[in-house]
């Protein structure tokens, strides 16, 4: 069984991001970039399935600039077997990404696609769902546990009310949530080995996908600063404020 794991190169989660002066987006110049944390969880899950003998090969794919090759190498250093880079300098939007991934899936024929529920740069949370619809495959989103059975997967999902366990027929698309696993560190020998693992390069046109944006960014702005709090003298005053000012009682 082959596993396909799409990964995205994003601003590192430790970076304090700044909005560009003209409000057109976030400042990306000289900012540390790394693998989307949800995608690290996806890679980890795929590797664990392989180590448990449930899968035979883990293929990682990224859609983005040439530099995304570094991010793919990180996944290879964690233990993925090979990588595909679909190189583009265009802005990547969920629909175009899902269409390219559909093309990759048709070429690779994986039994399971494990994808982060969202990327921490645009927080779209759409690609996995769109991909499943385009492929006509089952989807199990926000996974906190994945178990592979005969021709199906049992996935525990994090939903508002708690946990929901569903059974999906394979092939399927699973999107990963934060509590699925804790990603491993790439070991030094594996970082060395990753340099020699195969990495195929493609372009969006190889899959006949038009990257032109469907979304228009109107404005990007910093969240407004938090106002200073006030001190109250008594419980009575607090209750009064909660009732009459905050309107929560």
């Amino acid at each position, binding site marked *: 069984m082959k596993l396909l794991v799409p990964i995205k190169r994003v601003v590192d989660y430790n970076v304090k991001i700044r909005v560009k002066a003209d409000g057109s987006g976030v400042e990306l110049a000289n900012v540390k970039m*790394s693998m989307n944390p949800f995608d690290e969880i996806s890679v980890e899950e795929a590797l664990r399935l392989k180590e448990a003998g449930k899968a035979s090969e883990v293929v990682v794919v990224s859609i983005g600039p040439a530099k995304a090759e*570094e991010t793919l*190498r*990180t996944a290879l*250093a964690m233990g993925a077997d090979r990588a595909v880079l679909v190189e583009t300098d265009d802005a990547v939007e969920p629909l175009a990404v899902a269409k390219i991934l559909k093309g990759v899936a048709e070429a690779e024929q994986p039994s399971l696609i494990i994808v982060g529920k969202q990327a921490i740069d645009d927080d779209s949370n759409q690609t996995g769902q769109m991909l499943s619809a385009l492929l006509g495959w089952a989807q199990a989103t926000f996974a906190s546990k994945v178990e592979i059975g005969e021709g199906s997967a049992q996935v525990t999902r994090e939903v508002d009310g708690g946990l929901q366990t569903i059974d999906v027929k394979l092939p399927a698309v699973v999107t990963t949530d934060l509590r699925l696993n804790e990603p491993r*560190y*790439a*070991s*030094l*020998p*594996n*970082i*060395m080995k990753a*340099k020699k693992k195969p990495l195929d390069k493609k372009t969006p046109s190889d899959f006949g996908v038009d990257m032109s944006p469907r979304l228009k960014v109107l404005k990007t702005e910093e969240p407004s600063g938090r106002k200073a709090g006030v001190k109250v003298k008594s419980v009575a005053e607090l209750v009064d404020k909660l009732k009459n000012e905050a309107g929560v009682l």
Partner: protein
Amino acid sequence: MYLTETQEQVRDMARAFADEMIRPLAEELDREESFPAALYDEMAKLGLFGIGVPEALGGPGFDTLTYALVMEELSRGYASVADQCGLVELISTLLVRHGTERQQALLPDILGMRAKVAYCITEPEAGTDVSGIRTTAVRDGDGWRLDGGKIWIHNAPVADYGFVLARTDKEAGNRGMSIFIVDLHAAGVERGPKEHKMGQRASQVGALNFADVRLSADALLGTEGRGFHMMMSVLDKGRVGIASLAVGIGQAGLEAALDYAGTRKQFGKAISDFQGVQWLLADMAKDIEAARLLVHSAASKIDSGADATKACSIAKCFAGDMAVQRTADAVQVFGGSGYIRGFEVERLYRDAKITQIYEGTNQIQRMIIARELLKKGARA
């Protein structure tokens, strides 16, 4: 930046590991003076020991610059942990360069931390001047008999194998010393009590005594009489390691000081708003960066095969002095809190001091630098 993508990848991994797995343990390890066996097992699994050992011998086969990057990051987490990495690096470098196939068979256990090693040079009468050693190995049948004693030996209380420098020819000076691989569980080996140190307190240090210890013929590492030269041949790399370790301590101090200066309020504003504190921070940053660049330059020299002796001594000397001075500044930024046990900078200041002493005192480093400068035809 002049680092390769792979070097950055290794550094980032070591940095994340140090932040998440090492730094949170440092305070307790320092307080308890305990040997972090579980942490070392974890590091061994990640290939963080024996970084320069070639792939054919079971290591990852990285260059000296990568080793320096890892040492800085581990030390930023906790210097004692980096020093263990440095110790394994030196021993494995000796084995790779001079070991027989049978001796090199020890490497997987050493890199896997299943066998702990000690590098046994120093004696009461032989510190900086190694030629004063009195430990002797005398031929006995086809093997050897080892007698003498070592002090201040890192890992002595826990080690399985000692790499022991002993005199094999009393008349031959520096050409009369040899290195032996000694099973420290053998009869005649006695371990002294653990020393209680000022800093780097998770490093287990103590004495070893050898009374009529029988060694087989293949305990001899490399050629008889070449022990001093073998030891010297790994000194450059050792100095790069300790210099990196000193940079890591300084960097941890800067990070702690920046964090504190931004939150500590006096006279109604953060103390980082005062120029007096800003200058402390700026001086810390510039010296740390200078030391780091000296280290990287020395490491690159080793990797290129050039004569790196002067560069390594400059890096070690500068980085050690920097670490002591700039962690003192970090304590200063913290004020009274920085003098209290449990605050990271208090430990960092203590951890820094030994970097001016071990792997050749900084006075010796200055002598080496001067000697290299005054060589005929040398370029200043």
